[in-house]
């Protein structure tokens, strides 16, 4: 067996996986997106651009996704960073493991159940009732974009905490001492040493959360009351209610393209921020 044959053999399982799990389904979606809805729903082969022409009918779903996904990502990052910082830099090592486990604990229960719990917390007898007791009346939380945002932040926080934690934990503490020795105040040390060195973790966390959020449907379905629609909800609807596989495929393919473009631009920007420090990569 030659070297190149051996290489091919080793790559084959991964390549097969890619073809079966990624290339094939994507091709099916692409082909379906030019088809038509069957008489009782489903798909019949055709070649038409009608489905893509109909995309504006889902404008609001794309708009909601394109607003709430980045806003949710940034909000989760702003909340996760101090937490990760506290865990990685300030916490006594003997407590670290326990505290980290506590961050993971919510993952032991299904996101469905955890989101469902928020229906009661945000419902009329939950937080709004508490607010009423302190004199703030008429607050409506459940089934609003804000409820969806809270659900998103809550659900995705651990995914953001971990990458940031890892990058802060690996940070060479001697650099902080050096910075202090050279007369930098804590804030300056944070801004010029800690923060730049933790950018890879932040970038990874944001990317993880953002990509998942773009396809999110569960949280808006539960906390948006069928009114705050993401593209994911529009897709569920098209496949599981109105049975328009052709249009559903066009919507799905468009979402994939938007995601690819966004993520590429994002990686470029991060790479530029990182330039000059090629010892750290973002993923």
């Amino acid at each position: 067996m030659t070297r190149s044959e051996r290489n091919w053999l080793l790559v084959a399982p991964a390549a097969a996986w890619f073809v079966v799990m990624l290339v094939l389904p994507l091709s099916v979606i692409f082909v379906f997106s030019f088809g038509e809805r069957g008489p009782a729903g489903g798909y019949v082969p055709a070649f038409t651009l009608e489905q893509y022409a109909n995309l504006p009918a889902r404008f609001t779903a794309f708009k909601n996704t394109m607003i709430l996904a980045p806003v949710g990502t940034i909000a989760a990052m702003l909340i996760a960073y101090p937490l990760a910082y506290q865990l990685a830099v300030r916490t006594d090592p003997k407590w670290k493991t326990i505290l980290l486990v506590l961050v993971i604990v919510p993952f032991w229960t299904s996101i469905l159940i955890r989101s469902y719990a928020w229906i009661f917390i945000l419902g009329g007898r939950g937080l709004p009732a508490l607010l009423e007791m302190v004199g703030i009346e008429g607050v409506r939380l459940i089934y609003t974009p804000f409820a969806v945002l809270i659900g998103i932040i809550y659900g995705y926080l651990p995914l953001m905490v971990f990458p940031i934690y890892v990058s802060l934990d690996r940070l060479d503490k001697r650099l902080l001492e050096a910075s202090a020795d050279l007369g930098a105040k804590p804030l300056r040390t944070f801004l010029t040493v800690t923060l730049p060195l933790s950018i890879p973790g932040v970038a990874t966390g944001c990317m993880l959360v953002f990509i998942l959020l773009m396809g999110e449907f569960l949280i808006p379905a539960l906390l948006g009351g069928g009114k705050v629609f993401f593209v994911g909800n529009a897709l569920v609807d098209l496949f599981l209610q109105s049975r328009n596989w052709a249009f559903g495929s066009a919507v799905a393919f468009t979402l994939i393209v938007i995601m690819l473009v966004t993520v590429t631009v994002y990686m470029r920007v991060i790479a530029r921020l990182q330039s000059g420090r090629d010892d750290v990569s973002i993923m």
Partner: protein
Amino acid sequence: MKDNGYISKRKFMEELSRYRKGSVSRRHFLGVTGLGTATLVLGTAVPGLRPRPARADSHIGDRVVLATWPNYHDTANFDMFTDATGAFVQVNVFGSNEEMLAKLQAGGSGWDVFVPTNYTITTYVSEDLIEPLDVSKLQSYDAKAFEPRFSDAGTVDGTLYAVPKNWGTTGFAVNTAHDGGKALTSWKDFFDRTTDDFSGRTMVHDYQLTTIGNALKYFGYSFNSVNEAELAEAERLLIEVKPHLFAISSDYQPAMRSGDAWLTMCWTGDGKQLNSDIPEIEYVLGREGGEIWSDYYAIPKGAPHREAAYALINHMLDPQVNAREVQAHGYPVADANTNALLPEEILNDPILYPAQELLDALEFGAAATLTDPNRAELLARFKSA
């Protein structure tokens, strides 16, 4: 097990709701209601319930998967079935017939029994998704006892595909504590008041047939219209009220009970359940009309536990069991044998049996609405608007 002898209907319903909420154990419930004893007696009296140890395990398997609607069963009846046959009833709840059809079309649903509504059955037959029924396995089913208009949709081209479960109407439930003394009596009221004093408090079904149909009734069109111009008007109305909706969902009881929602499109039994627990929530049929419907038990093609499916349907159609179902969920049945066992106050309940002039205005759903691409897309567009 202690048998307390007599139990009043009210007390029975209270105990039932305590049991359903999980506040009391099943043992307590069966004991205090006498159902435990009744089950023992029934178990030997009714052929379908007679324990068949050898059969139970080897034939029908350990489970049966039922796809049905929210708040549509008495779980005690499922427990009885499990006790008698050893098969556990796994319940999947749906919000629309479209959702059920989509699952079956996609394949691999894993269902053994599902509960389609009258107007969908011809489509299931033409799509080859539904199993013809073998009546010899349904000893409890007495075809002659059923009112034909609620049972005839189960037969397509002379073949029996589905047997009637319950019938009912689609109206709305309104919390009259919030109507300012001005009663709502029509679909016009329903939508107009939603943009006014019920703003932010109204729910509509996540279901094309009723949400579009009732919007069509606002303009006086047929509930089943597939006319593009009429649908366009209905869509404008729905888009206009959307910002005033509390939610778009077919599971509206929790929000009505918590007081978050005050007004919702509503099916008979939900109306009855809400009204029994919270009397100021009233069930209203729109004066313009709306839907009258009949649901059926059916078996999908390729059901993994077909024998258990027959056993479950047979169990549920037993008049004794069916009568308890009606008392638990408040949907009427078209079966004379079951009605003979029901108390007078249920048979005269205006929620279950609305006045004739209100019923006369109602329409059965039409098969065309299920497959019409415009209605399907209209609802999807309305939700993502």
